[in-house]
């Protein structure tokens, strides 16, 4: 650590932009969350205290939406992490065709979620989609991929896994490249099996970057909207509706600004709690391997 006034020149641009464009609007919407404020039909802002929060917490729809979002986020990130780590290990160990795989495996991450959802709608089409063709071959024609709750949630998770496993592959590959070879040479001298090497060396040393990557994905998954919006529209009923989609319906279909602001602050609290618990669970493990 060294001291030099130039550090302010380095940090101020980022600080100003974040303060002005991210923090300041939030303060504005925090004030809105304590008001009854509608655009359609227009009603002037009126202070109502915690009424918006109270009515949300007693709304069963809020709890169902929170549950659906958590289910999609946790299941899809768990699958992404397991597959992503396996693929990253294989690529790092120079599996045949590794160069080709490296390029193709990153592609899904680069595609707009809106476009992915449009493609998924075609593939999951229950009558003329290719997946139906495959399932018909196995004897299960016309499965209700997008029109029955658990099938639809499964479809959403599949799309999430397809699109975001590449992010985990990319980050873990970068992490694997920084691991020193000498530890493995020592382990090989001791006749440690590949399995032992993984649990004894690779996994612990990759824990910090794993923790970061899973954290990012978890938080991002909670914000899911474009995929759901195009793929199921929250249906059937509201059974695949996520928090952001719920906020969209309240805010931009009903223009209920106060209620939507309160909803988003509850959403923020939920995410903060998840984040803090996550870091608290991981902290002892991270400290051990520093």
């Amino acid at each position, binding site marked *: *650590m060294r*001291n030099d006034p130039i*550090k302010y*020149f*380095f*940090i101020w641009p*980022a*600080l100003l*932009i*974040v*303060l*002005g*464009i*991210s923090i*300041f609007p*939030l303060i*504005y919407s925090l*004030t809105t969350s304590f008001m009854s404020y509608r655009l359609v039909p227009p009603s002037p802002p009126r202070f109502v205290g915690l009424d918006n929060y109270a009515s949300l917490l007693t709304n069963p729809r809020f709890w169902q939406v929170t549950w659906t979002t958590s289910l999609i986020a946790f299941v899809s990130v768990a699958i992404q992490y397991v597959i992503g780590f*396996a*693929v990253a290990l*294989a690529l*790092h160990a120079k*599996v*045949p065709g590794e*160069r080709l*795989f490296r*390029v*193709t*495996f*990153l592609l899904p991450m*680069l*595609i*707009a*979620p*809106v*476009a992915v959802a*449009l*493609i998924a709608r*075609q*593939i999951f089409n229950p009558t*003329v*989609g*290719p997946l*139906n*063709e495959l399932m018909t071959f196995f004897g299960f024609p016309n499965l209700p991929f997008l029109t029955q709750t658990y099938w639809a949630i499964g479809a959403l998770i599949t799309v999430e896994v*397809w699109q975001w496993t590449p992010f985990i592959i990319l980050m873990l590959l970068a992490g694997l490249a920084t691991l020193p070879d000498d530890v493995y*040479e020592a382990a090989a001298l001791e006749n440690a099996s590949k399995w032992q090497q993984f649990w004894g060396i690779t996994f612990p040393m990759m824990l910090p970057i794993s923790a970061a990557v899973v954290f*990012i994905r978890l938080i991002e998954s909670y*914000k899911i*909207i*474009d995929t759901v919006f195009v793929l199921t529209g929250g249906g059937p009923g509201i059974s695949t509706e996520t928090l*952001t989609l719920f906020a969209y319906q309240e*805010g931009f279909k009903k223009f209920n*600004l106060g209620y939507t*602001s309160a909803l988003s*602050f509850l*959403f923020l609290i939920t*995410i*903060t709690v998840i*984040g803090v618990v996550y870091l608290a669970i991981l902290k002892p493990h991270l400290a051990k391997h520093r």
Partner: protein
Amino acid sequence: MSIRNLNGRSRAWALIGCLFWFLFTLFPIYWVIITSFKTSLSVVGQARFIPFVDFEPSLLAWQELFGGVRGEFMNTFIASTIVSLSSAVLATAIGAMAAYALVRFPFRVKLAAGLVFFVVALGGYLLGANVFGWSRATAMFAAFGLALLLSLLVNRVRVPGPILGNDDIIFWFVSQRMFPPIVAAFALFLMYSEIGRLGFKMIDTYVGLTLAYIAFSLPIVIWLMRDFFAALPVEVEEAAMVDNVPSWRIFTGIVVPMSTPGLVATFMITLAFVWNEFLFALFLTNARWQTLPILVAGQNSQRGDEWWSISAAALIAIVPMMVMAAILSRLMRSGLLLGAIK
């Protein structure tokens, strides 16, 4: 041949797994490409997989697309390109600078200063807008400036309370990313409209959208670049300091070249995020600076089940990112970006 390479059976299993994932990854992309060459005849009835064998390919969807039947694709494409390239470059540059400062220099921010910023910004805005009867934008600007000044002042003087270090500042930056974008997008829309009433047009302008995207990308850039910078050996920089090289020269001349792979990876992720971003573009643009995802999403509701034209539209949004990935992976492979680390 590295010590960590696989051999024998495990190599074969790894290959089988990778091949399976390869097919899973590529099939949807293959499907959207062939569907864009179908017509209504080859979509109904059953799924058709192989062009020329299963169905007769047609250029209908593409002719309609470039013929302008489906809206202004060219303008939207150019707007999307300009906005995402410039915001990705700026976010990576600004974020890398901040991350470097946070890794190498000590910062001390008093918690009290942060609280002062929050309270003054909130109270100043409410006072200005409701008591003094200023326009909302004027109240916002006044409150923002005042809050910034007062918090800087508080940070100078002796006040009780905890002092935040570098890790806390990084956590603060990264935590911006946790906020649900839907409320940020709408609050920003309201803020921009208020500023617009003062005569500075922000909605549907290049500046407004790019600023929003930079702010939206900074947390992730800082998080990623912090890890890359922290992994760099500090000895090289210390040697340069002994020779009295100024800090900014150390940054541009030594640190940036050494961390090029990290910078490129971060740039690529930021670019993809911005190019594909939906919510901010939806609320902050309406015509001139509308981006591709908005236009593509519109196809779904406008065209019903005309899968061929929807596929062509989706491909326009997909292809540039694929081309970029191909170019960047070439650069990576050629070792051009490996720099001084090896």
